[in-house]
């Protein structure tokens, strides 16, 4: 009995990685900005959305992890095998475009978080890009994953800074479970943003590929699912503390819009040097982490789907397309941040639009695939799970389309 329990715990630690890392990277520079903005402007009110976000995240992530474990193939592999080359090519092009904009946003996060400490972006961005490139090109999958897991632990910064701000915990507790709906355009936009950005196409590809790469099979699937769930919960816990920190520090002093995530960090300054420092470090870590994962995951998915050699365990010569794509994403993504007057905000809004076109496709393909008996055998969706799955997918698609409309409006205004 004890032996069996020990085996389960050992297995859990053996499968830890994919789900956890994916969920953590979801809190990238863009995510932190969204949550900070929510807290700064509306205080504790938006906290209730976190529970449904977790649920949506778990439902969509679980299906991908299951597909990876059962079929041993990545999502782009399966799309290629079941829906053909042209579909795959189209999906991959959209993925590259939206992820490129994401990489830009995260390099911008690296630049602005370190500028808080007075270091110029002309120093930090090239260094960060080179570091990210070397880590992946010179590393093995196991080592890279360990570095990623270590980076995940830095998110604790947000929890500590949340405590240092001494927010109103009673209010935080109440509004975590009490849904507040106001028919105010700003509030609705924020809700759509929070939920709409919570599931991104790259996550589905990355998670499934990571599960496969780690060698998780149907046998260890129970542990892997638990890991995915724990990861999603950890992600929302971090989001909770970001919102609470900004609510306590900024909203309580006077609700306002913030310009970017560094603005939020500055807002924490009255609560001590450390609260500010931790928030800024958290932002830097999250941006760098995402700037690393996004190009990697993109290169993986594209090469798998189109049938080129891929993998960090292969050399530059064996997998040229993989490495070129990876290098290009980092080079371009980091490079544009150094161009004075580059319309970054426009790029990010545009990426939201592409994202909105891509996510519905990915989610629908995903749920169609997970229902194929030939692929999934006894692991395919049950009828109940399908109902939950389709509902989640429809909600996400609806919110993403809403986000697209908002982005287009902002794009026109900009």
């Amino acid at each position, binding site marked *: 009995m004890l032996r069996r329990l020990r085996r389960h715990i050992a297995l859990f630690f053996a499968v830890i990685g994919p789900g956890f890392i994916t969920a953590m990277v979801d809190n990238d520079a863009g995510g932190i900005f969204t949550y900070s903005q929510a807290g700064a402007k509306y205080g504790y009110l938006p906290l209730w959305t976190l529970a449904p976000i977790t649920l949506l995240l778990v439902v969509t992530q679980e299906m991908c992890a299951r597909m990876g474990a059962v*079929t*041993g193939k990545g999502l782009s592999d399966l799309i290629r*095998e079941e829906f053909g*080359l042209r579909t795959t*090519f189209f999906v991959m092009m959209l993925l590259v475009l939206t992820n490129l904009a994401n990489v830009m946003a995260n390099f911008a996060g690296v630049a602005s978080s370190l500028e808080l400490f007075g270091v110029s972006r002309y120093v930090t961005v090239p260094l960060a890009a080179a570091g990210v490139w070397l880590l992946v090109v010179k590393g093995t999958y196991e080592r890279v994953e360990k570095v990623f897991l270590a980076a995940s632990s830095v998110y604790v910064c947000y929890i500590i800074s949340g405590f240092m701000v001494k927010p109103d915990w009673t209010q935080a507790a109440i509004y975590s479970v009490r849904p507040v709906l106001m028919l105010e355009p700003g509030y609705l936009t924020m809700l759509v943003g929070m939920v709409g950005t919570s599931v991104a196409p790259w996550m589905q590809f990355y998670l499934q590929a990571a599960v496969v790469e780690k060698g998780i*099979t149907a*046998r260890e699937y129970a542990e892997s699912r638990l890991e995915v769930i724990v990861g999603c919960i950890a992600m929302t816990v971090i989001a909770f503390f970001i919102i609470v920190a900004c609510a306590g520090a900024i909203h309580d002093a006077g609700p306002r819009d913030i310009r970017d995530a560094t603005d939020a960090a500055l807002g924490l300054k009255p609560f001590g040097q450390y609260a500010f420092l931790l928030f800024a470090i958290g932002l830097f870590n999250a941006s760098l982490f995402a700037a690393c994962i996004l190009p990697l995951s993109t290169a993986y998915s594209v090469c798998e789907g189109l*049938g080129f*050699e891929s993998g960090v365990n292969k050399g530059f010569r064996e997998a040229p397309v993989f490495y070129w794509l990876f290098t290009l994403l980092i080079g371009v993504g980091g490079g544009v941040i150094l161009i004075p007057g580059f319309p970054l905000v426009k790029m990010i809004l545009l990426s939201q639009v592409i994202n909105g076109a891509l996510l519905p496709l990915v989610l629908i393909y995903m749920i169609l695939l997970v229902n194929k008996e030939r692929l999934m055998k006894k692991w395919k969706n049950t009828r109940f799970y399908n109902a939950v799955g389709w509902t989640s997918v429809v909600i996400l698609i609806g919110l993403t389309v809403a986000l697209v409309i908002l982005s287009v409006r902002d794009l026109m205004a900009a």
Partner: protein
Amino acid sequence: MAEEILYLTELLGLKVYDLRRRPLGRVRDAVLVPRLHPVRVDRYLVAGGGGYTWLYVRHDQVAEITLEGIWLRDELLVPYHADEYALRLVRDVLDQQIIDAQGRKVVRVTDITFEIRREGGHDVLHVLEVDIGMRAVLRRLLQGWVPRRWIRRLQQRIPPNSIRWELCNIVEPDPQRRLRLNISMDLLEQMHPADLADIVEELSPEDREAIIEAIDTEVAAEALSELDPEMQAQIIESLDAGKAADILEEMAPDEAADVLGELEEERSEEILEEMESAPKAEVEELLEYDENTAGGLMNTEFIAVHEDATVADAIDALRQRQDLVDTINMVFLTDTDDRLRAALPVGRLFLARPSTKVAELVREDDEVISVRTGEPAERVLELFDKYNLLTLPVVDEEGRLAGVITADDIISVLRSR
């Protein structure tokens, strides 16, 4: 204009004309029946009547095949029916993973190249190559949107990347279907086990297990020893106990014990039950040791002779274990109680006269270095490093020879860190 080759992408959607040159429908798939002919397209699957009726066109019903269409010489067509002996190129091969036996890797099929041959006054297609790479990707993307001849002109700038059909191995997990489609494992069995292991690693668990199950037990054992322990355990776990036992018997006992050590106890006992008594006893003995000790690292494949034996006896002992000749470099001398007395490089035996006593070949400065079974792996590594060893004997508490650790075991330990 008659072409010599045709791509599957071009064949798809090609119009089929009846005897009076009226269009009947469009090609949807090409069928190979490997049991009848290994490379000839046996039938074409044609969708007619607005796509609602699917018909088979037999290869001998075709008069001419060009880039513009297929002209029939016989229009008595049968409707489509499922056929277990048929390999449908679009459904079963296109976009799927296959094994490139020459390049020794797993590749994804983007297109297929046919040769148009004239046989007995009518055109047939023979599968020539499987296309991977950019050139084929371009064809796939433009197919149907750009005229066929334009695509041919456009693609010329891109270097081709193809694999000859004979060197491709289709991955089919179902053994029955493999038989019906005449898919042999010969290509895989001829590969170096390490290359085969790399390929197996890249496949999905289902395909992985199917290949190990289907290929020759000895090859399977060799390939399996090249995989990492976790994957070995996964594969062995999936096989039935009898087959698993057969493969483990072929593996070196220490490796077999490592694999079994990774499995759940019930399962590993079930497999041990199926093993033959001799290898089973060795493996069971090795399973007793902790994997991080000398006992856990060692194997029991060594040759020992009594110290009073002659060179002729020792060579005789070698002859009886010919399976070890390729790998061993030491013969051990033991006393009447099996206690280790000395280690003798194999080469010395061949320089001595047959009647010489082996004990005489031991030199003054031949110090025998050994470890106890319980010593930690760290200590073993130290000894290998310090004395530049190739083989290290392992003894039990009473000093009896229990096994040997060889340099390849040490390399595995170092690699896995």
